[in-house]
């Protein structure tokens, strides 16, 4: 009998049930989308923060002091120690390799240009632009286009395996060159593919593929420093501790957390004779910005959950309030409060399940759309969210209906049937 009443109630009041289910569905959609966005926002913003540039710098351990003012290095290029280019792919073999967004080796050199009969000394920087490398079976593309996204090129980026170069915009103006021209240095001609605009000392330099710079200083395989851009976890008390003073258990926890310090430690392990240091300007500040944005989204998600809970309860309350006459009739025929209430709760549960499933699917689509339009990447919904969302939907629908059901049940059937509500 109970089942039949529920079934008939759905069959006969399709429009009303649809309205309630749609309200629940919309509420669940918003809740799902917001929870999905809020759980993923940290990762997404962390990636956006990488546009501020590398947060780690790897240098040779026994390096001599840099004597550099305004981008002009007064240290003789032959002085000091070098890292080996062959060790670079090992960066992708470290424990936190998936957190390494990119890296770019740098090798400063200096070349003599002869123009209009006069010769001048011009700094040259060798680097990767977008070089494809392989570590084991892992293939990846890395270079300044990933680590230094504010470098803008008018023209085209050179191929990493060519001898083409970029010329900084200030240097290009003083030399009077444009893309397509060529420069003559170290005994060969180099085509200029583009003019580089950075807004700092690189604007006065020639930027060339790493192999060109190695040729210029006659040190094949040499790299002066490596900029590494890594996704890190904001620093906490454990991160700041000295790994040498930790017991093995604590050390494992430190080693297996993507702190900027532990990634630096692993880079030092991967590249022989190296010293890795966090670039504090970038690494120290991203934690605060990230925490602020995450906190904001958490609070906004709470507001969204509250709003959708209220919308669902309001819809349920209205739906039940309209059925006082029905309740009066049932009670006049001898139904107890419990029987009436359980009928409504069963209906609410069914509605919550339908609305919840549909809302979860719609919320997933919405979150994906938000991820695509705003971050140009997918926002994935953890399947673990599904039971949680469904439980929330049922609880909210129940609690939203509870007051209305109580009022409907307490109402005197005589008044309800007379229509004196």
């Amino acid at each position, binding site marked *: 009998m109970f089942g039949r009443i529920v079934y008939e109630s759905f069959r006969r009041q399709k429009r009303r049930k649809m309205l309630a289910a749609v309200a629940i569905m919309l509420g669940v959609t918003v809740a799902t989308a917001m929870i999905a966005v809020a759980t993923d926002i940290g990762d997404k913003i962390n990636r956006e923060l990488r546009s501020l540039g590398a947060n780690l710098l790897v240098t040779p351990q026994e390096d001599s002091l840099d004597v550099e003012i305004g981008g002009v290095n007064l240290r003789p290029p032959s002085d000091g120690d070098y890292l080996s280019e062959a060790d670079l792919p090992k960066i992708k073999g470290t424990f936190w390799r998936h957190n390494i967004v990119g890296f770019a080796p740098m090798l400063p050199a200096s070349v003599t240009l002869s123009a209009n009969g006069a010769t001048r000394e011009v700094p040259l920087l060798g680097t990767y632009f977008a070089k494809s490398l392989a570590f084991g079976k892992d293939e990846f593309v890395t270079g300044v286009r990933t680590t230094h996204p504010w470098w803008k090129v008018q023209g085209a980026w050179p191929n990493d395996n060519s001898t083409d170069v970029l010329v900084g915009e200030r240097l290009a103006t003083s030399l009077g060159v444009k893309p397509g021209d060529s420069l003559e240095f170290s005994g060969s001609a180099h085509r200029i593919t583009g003019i580089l605009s950075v807004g700092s000392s690189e604007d006065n330099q020639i930027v060339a593929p790493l192999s060109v710079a190695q040729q210029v200083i006659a040190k094949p395989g040499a790299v002066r420093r490596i900029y590494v851009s890594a996704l890190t976890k904001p620093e906490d008390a454990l991160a700041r501790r000295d790994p040498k003073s930790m017991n093995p258990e604590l050390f494992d926890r430190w080693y297996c957390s993507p702190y900027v310090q532990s990634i630096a430690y692993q880079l030092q392990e991967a590249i022989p004779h190296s010293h890795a240091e966090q670039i504090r300007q970038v690494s120290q500040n991203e934690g605060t910005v990230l925490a602020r944005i995450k906190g*904001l989204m958490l609070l906004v998600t709470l507001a969204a959950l509250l709003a959708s809970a209220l919308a669902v309860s309001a819809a349920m309350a209205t739906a039940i309030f309209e059925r006082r006459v029905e309740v009066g009739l049932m009670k006049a025929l001898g139904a107890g409060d419990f029987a009436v209430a359980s009928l409504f709760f069963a209906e609410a549960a069914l509605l919550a399940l339908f609305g919840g499933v549909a809302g979860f699917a719609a919320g997933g689509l919405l979150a994906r759309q938000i991820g695509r339009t705003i971050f140009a990447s997918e926002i994935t919904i953890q399947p673990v969210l599904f039971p949680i969302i469904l439980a929330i939907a049922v609880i909210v629908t129940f609690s939203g209906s509870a007051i209305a059901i109580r009022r409907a049940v307490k109402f005197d059937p005589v008044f309800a049937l007379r229509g004196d509500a």
Partner: protein
Amino acid sequence: MSTATASVAPSLREKRAGKPHTSMFLRMLLRAAVLRRGRAASALMAMTVAATVATAMMNLYVDVQAKLRSEFRSYGANIVVVAKDGTSLPPSALDAVTAALQGHGQAVPFAFVVARTSSDQPVVVAGTNFDQVRSLNRWWSVSRWPSAPQEALLGMRAVPVVAPRGGPFDLTFQGRTLHLNSAGTLQTGAAEDNRVYLSMNDFVAWTGVQPSTIEVAASGAPPEVEATMQRLAAALPAADVRPVRQIVEGEARVLGKTRATLLAASVLIILTSALCVFSTLTGWVFDRRRDFAVMKALGASEKLVSGFFAAEAAALGAVGALLGYALGIGVAAWIGRANFNATITPRLSVFPWVLTGSMVVAILSAIVPMTMLRKVQPAIILRGE
């Protein structure tokens, strides 16, 4: 919106022409609210909550930008003023920069020379103002800031070259030797680690070289920063004024994404709360179909009845918006305190939006059931069918 108020306004104006009618209309509105307290209260609550959420979200959306931007200032300078071609800036440059900033930011001068250590090693020595650099470059990890004259800050990598045994050391520039004490070490992970930092007074007295670079952290939105840059360029025609693109572009990108996410969230939340108001108010009007029928049976015109319900809904919307605005400001202020440790200024400009939004939603929620009821004969409603 415009059509909804237009339909209310004439009917109100008509009634105001005769005084007794006005008081009757008002009395009906008041009694309706008093007699059905429960339903009216729940409708008002839904209205208030929706207005609260909308106010809080709009206020946050407007203010969060400014708050996050000030967080980004901890990344340091976003503009650099550099003397052209390795020369020095005029001695009045710092004053000119400070004047051009008009209090919207801070400026720190830097001067550089290459000096020799006692073992004839070259090292870059920089002069700066320690108090200013400390507040601008908060990521500098310094063991102890110099406080007395002739005290220097040593970059981590410079320590073994300059003062391998610790204690006092000598630096020579163009034949003039300066005796210095080491105050502490500096670690940044960048070029600063290779340098020795002196106070600007010591530096100028020793080398006679004026600052060549002024780092500027200008606060405000991109147009304001742009305007500051133009003022700086006008004030110092002899220098290059350029943005620190790494910081400026990164900031714009992160802020843009955050803003877009917040906008999407605000739209979703405001829509959901509007839905909540809609379903509550629709139920409320449906519930009063007997009033509607009685009014019509007593000879009220369709216009008057619709006007009555619409006015009721509009009044509800206005009261809800007022309460919600006050509460929403509170919520936004709390979020500002909890998340940014800063107060979020109440935005009066949000209020008209919340008010019109609430009234439009309220009137729409009343009109939908009204049009449905209009088709039904009063007799049928009164018979209770």
